[in-house]
């Protein structure tokens, strides 16, 4: 089923992960917003990263620095030549963000486990453990800085003039401005609505009921034919805090093979707070 994706190797199945458990050059990383899930049980050998406290700078609002990334990943026993498989909670939103971060700092061989931790959990032949993995820390040197995977505000303003695809992956009510954030969410904004010229394509459009990605043909039909994402244009995906948009960024860049796709991790919690920024509603 994965054969028709533009880059099929970046997506691995739960069965593939099971078959490759314990191989020394394959490192599993569970990335969750709530690491209670990791603590309660994870794939044998997986290390756990907390999206809020370990992948975000804890002082300013930003991704962690190159040095912090090297320290985190090295302490997890991961070498630049290892195959890293990420998976996580909430349909892999935070794992996709982790994937994006690993790519920003130039890690080469990176895979996302299709369906995330829920798929693994619900398959009878897959085991979970509370045992902490045996990790031997290593020196990790990031090979690069791929800032072209990230969109910052000036570029977003430019993109909103119409020459780019702007994909808003939030819920329809967030897009129209009926709500500023989903109920109960603490990160919010001063204004509701969306960036001018953005298209509303909720992140969940890309997944089947079991949480795995839809086949390539279906994704192409939805994003390009039905929703009007122009493959000839450059693309920016955004959401509220940059995690759901990482999921769509992964779809557009790796499953559909669009060139030059960026994740706007500032997303609505940045844009919706900017003084003077143009906003569209409804």
């Amino acid at each position, binding site marked *: 089923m994965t054969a028709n994706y533009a880059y099929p190797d970046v997506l691995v199945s739960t069965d593939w992960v099971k078959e490759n458990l314990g191989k020394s050059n394959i490192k599993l990383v569970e990335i969750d917003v709530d690491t*209670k*899930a990791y603590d*309660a*049980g*994870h794939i044998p050998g997986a290390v756990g990263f907390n999206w809020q406290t370990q992948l975000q700078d804890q002082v300013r609002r930003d991704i962690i620095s190159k040095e912090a990334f090297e320290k985190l990943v090295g302490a997890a026993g991961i070498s630049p030549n290892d195959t890293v498989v990420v998976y996580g909670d909430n349909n892999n939103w935070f794992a996709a963000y982790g994937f994006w971060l690993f790519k920003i700092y130039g890690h080469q061989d990176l895979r996302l486990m299709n369906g995330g931790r*829920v798929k693994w*959990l619900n398959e009878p032949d897959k*085991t979970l453990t509370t045992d902490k993995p045996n990790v031997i820390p290593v020196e990790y040197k990031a090979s690069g800085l791929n800032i072209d995977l990230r969109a910052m505000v000036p570029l977003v303003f430019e993109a909103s003039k119409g020459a780019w695809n702007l994909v808003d992956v939030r819920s329809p009510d967030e897009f129209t401005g009926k709500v500023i954030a989903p109920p109960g969410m603490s990160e919010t904004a001063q204004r509701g609505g969306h960036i001018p010229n953005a298209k509303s394509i909720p992140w969940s459009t890309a997944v089947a009921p079991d949480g795995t990605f839809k086949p390539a043909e279906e994704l192409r039909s939805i994003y390009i034919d039905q929703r009007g994402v122009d493959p000839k244009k450059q693309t920016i995906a955004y959401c509220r805090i940059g995690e759901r948009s990482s999921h769509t960024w992964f779809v557009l860049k790796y499953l559909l093979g669009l060139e030059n796709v960026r994740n706007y991790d500032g997303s609505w919690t940045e844009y919706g707070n900017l003084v003077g920024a143009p906003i569209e509603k409804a």
Partner: protein
Amino acid sequence: MIIPMDHGKRVYKDIFELLPNEQNPSPMVRINRMNPTPGFELYAKLEWMNPFGSVKDRAAWAMLRDLEERGEVNPKRGFVEPTSGNTGISLAAMARARGYHMRAVVPNKVPLEKKLLLKIAGAELDVISDELCPAPGLGDGSINLAKTHAKAQHERYAMPNQYENEKNVEAHFQTTGPEIWRQTDGRITHLFVSLGTCGTASGASKFLKGKKPDIKVIAVQPTEGHDVPGLRNVTQLGVSKLFDASLVDDILEVEFRLAYSRALELCQTEGLLAGPSSGLIYEGAREIILRDKQGLGVMIFPDNIFKYTSNMAKHIAGLMSGTQA
């Protein structure tokens, strides 16, 4: 000398003998002042009179007994269960009385009273950010966290899983349904229930419709985005494995705030200290009674108001005034 147990004198050898069944049914009380149509007899079946305080005693006991009989629990291997409170409270108290441990995974929005009661009943508590009622499906909510515990520590936890366990339905087929049939001498025409795990609706309806196919089973649901613990909105029903659409004739959607105002009215008008889900069911029953005019209706009142004082304070304007010196 031990006093001999005697149902007539209400002396029992242990708390489990108080669990409801056809011979020891939960009481049914007629609605008087709040019945809008005298031609329609309306009764509330008071499930809070069960020994652990709610309708969930029935499912919890059936699931516990099943796991015991299959040798799945012992003093080292207890329970883990996702719960919005009542099942967990019943299960924890039962488990501890039989020597098993219990871990309850609870959505954060469950009222504080219920969380404390779970601890008091002897449960270890996991509170997680989740929707109000544990929702099956892809979310990483309390159901999946409980499943994770059960899978990662199989030697420590058995998971009854009230959302998928047929024993939940069977409990109501074997107790709630026959009790109502006997208590109404077979005259029941309408059954009013709420939907959470859907065990009550499916089990009681299956029994009663088996006796009398034209009995109308009406499920009452809160509006989307509600704040009534334990209940499920109609949009979430597709994900409940115990829901059987062929056993429910009507699903009414009721503005959730009415659950609180009707509960207050039941307390202050009928002397029934009913919780918000009972208030919601009453509101649904009222609509149907005004429509159908004649019949005999039974409302399953799941629990009483005691666990919801903080929620009542949130939803009933002015309730807090005058409570401080």
